[in-house]
């Protein structure tokens, strides 16, 4: 059986500048992968490229998702196929209510699977259940998407959306940045509750802190657009202790 996600020799540019330079990664169901690395290594670029952000240009390599060529798909098709990104900087959209936003998103994914639109009562039940998972209150539905949300609320809102859409592969891009310890616990608990044998998570983070709550199976170090080291969870601790220098010194120009 094909890997859930398979990345081979991925090269990607932004504004003509090469950020990813031959990245390989394989992710299977049931796994949590952590991608760590110093600033500017290409962590967020990887996330953006995977979900199809049009600001990035793939110049080489291939990415398959359940055997399908991911790079051929529009961002919305990738989402409907079960790919989810928790944005590092969630976008504020004044005038679009969370309830309308989520109804549209849920129904689009259902349509993609050949399902009827969700019944109104089922939808409201689902909203309630999932927002409670990340401790968001009932005013959420009527609020505009991320507008006026605190930093912590925005990140919890990302996990709420993840819970609503139930993706096969979730990518958490610096979900821990700007979070206090309580919010971090809520977010991590949410992610852990959503973990199943038939889905997977990529956690992109700068610090080891989040990995105390979300236990990865694999830790990768990304540097200069390539994965330069992969190991088990113990690598995160080692990085916390020694920094990145001992790994990246061999790859410096």
């Amino acid at each position, binding site marked *: 059986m094909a890997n859930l996600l398979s990345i081979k020799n991925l090269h990607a540019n932004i504004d003509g500048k090469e950020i990813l330079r031959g990245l390989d990664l394989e992710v299977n169901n049931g796994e949590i992968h952590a991608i760590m690395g110093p600033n500017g290594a290409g962590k967020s670029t990887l996330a953006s490229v995977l979900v199809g952000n049009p600001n990035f240009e793939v110049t080489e390599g291939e990415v398959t998702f359940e055997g399908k060529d991911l790079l051929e798909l529009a961002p919305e098709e990738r989402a409907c196929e079960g790919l989810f990104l928790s944005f590092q900087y969630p976008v504020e*959209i004044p*005038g679009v209510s969370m309830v309308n936003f989520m109804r549209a998103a849920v129904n689009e994914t259902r349509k993609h699977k050949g399902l009827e639109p969700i019944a109104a009562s089922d939808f409201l039940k689902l909203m309630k259940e999932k927002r409670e998972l990340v401790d968001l209150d009932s005013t959420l539905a009527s609020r505009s998407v991320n507008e006026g949300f605190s930093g912590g609320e925005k990140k919890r809102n990302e996990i709420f959306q993840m819970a609503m859409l139930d993706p096969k592969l979730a990518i958490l891009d610096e979900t821990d940045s700007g979070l206090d310890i309580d919010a971090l616990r809520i977010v991590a608990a949410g992610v852990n509750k959503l973990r199943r044998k038939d889905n997977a998570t990529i956690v992109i983070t700068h610090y080891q802190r989040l990995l105390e709550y979300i236990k990865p199976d694999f830790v990768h170090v990304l540097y200069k657009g390539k994965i330069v080291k992969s190991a088990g969870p113990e690598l995160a601790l080692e990085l916390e202790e020694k920094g990145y220098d001992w790994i990246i010194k061999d790859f410096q120009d």
Partner: protein
Amino acid sequence: MIETQYIDLFTEHRSLIDSKSTKVLNDERNKAFEIFKTLGFPDRSLEDYQYSDVVKEFIPDYGFNLSRLSTQTNPYNAYKCNVPELSTNLFFLMNDTFHKEHQPKTDFPKGVFIGSLNDFAEQHADIASKYYGKVAQLENNAIAAFNTMFVQDGFVIYIPDNIVIEQPLQLINILTANVDFLVNRRLLIIAGKNSQVKLLACDHTVDSHKFLATQVTEIFAEENAHIEFYELEENSNQVTRLASTYVQQEKSSTVLVNNITLNCGFTRNNYHVKLNGENAEATIAGVVIADKVQHVDNFAFLDHAKPHCQSTQLFKYVLQEQAVGSFCGRILVEQDAQKTIAYQTNNNLCASPDARMYSKPQLEIYADDVKCSHGLTTGQLDEDALFYLRARGIAKEDAKLLLMQAFTADVLKLIHIDVLRDRLEELVEKRFRGEEARCGDCAICK
């Protein structure tokens, strides 16, 4: 000169025009005619008409209905408005004639007059002459002068002191003819002290001919009167609408004017609001959705003549294809108008590379203790927001639709009649989807 044909027409048919109208209206014609002859139509050399060539709209050869022949269409049979609860108090202007048959049977409180301008001017000449033509500033508005020269009927709402009309009134302006046609409509809304009234005026076109409609609306809000005036334009692309709305507000009155341009050919809306008593509050708002080669120009002039008044202007445009939009908002704070609060916002979305928007805020402040602000933005759809929606599985076109709807949402929120707001949100959504945004069961539009 384009004016000549209209000057000749007026001179030749003056007695016919007068004979089919009433004294109150006829008394204003000489003055209007003199002004029109002096000013001529406003061309683009005038700053306020820089971006809208209204003169060329008068070039085609239009028919007039000066002898007031009645139209064949029975609007009541043809028109079924699909805004529940609103459809009961329905009135019609067929071109520029009040439709007297089949008026609603509602018993309005004693003293209230809702109906034909001519009838009102005959039955209540004293009140009519006190208000008619008294707030429209013809000397600065040749098209309003033109309207005053030719106008022979219109629609009046007169609410005496202390009377509240709970249920919204609805006026349907229907354009129908078998030749290219010019109509001159007149609306007069008088709300006495402590009175309240709400009016929705809808513009519909029945025939595919070219129409030019001038409209002058005069609104008087006496002390503590509350008026809501909604306008919905759903004309064909062959219609030119040149409208001027004049509002005079006394102490503690509130007036809301909310204009939604859903479909049109060439539209120019002027708003002149005079806050003439302390603690008066005016909100002038508009949504414009335009595509093809539609042209929409809103011009708002808020005159703060007295202290402690508040005004809000909120105009939003969504322009697609080769549509052209123009907005000019002027706030004048007179020397005595201390503690004025005046806000102006104009946000525009050019959703195609060919769409054009001209926007011009103007503040003229002579008092020293005031709070005034203006903000205007013109841009494209937010790419980050668009991507965010798509990343959640929402198809690009649907995501655009959500964002365009969201963009207009705050103007629609100003509509205080729930059923109307819901209906309009629906119509706006349809319009963005590219479906014919027609009023549901409105047989006339089908």
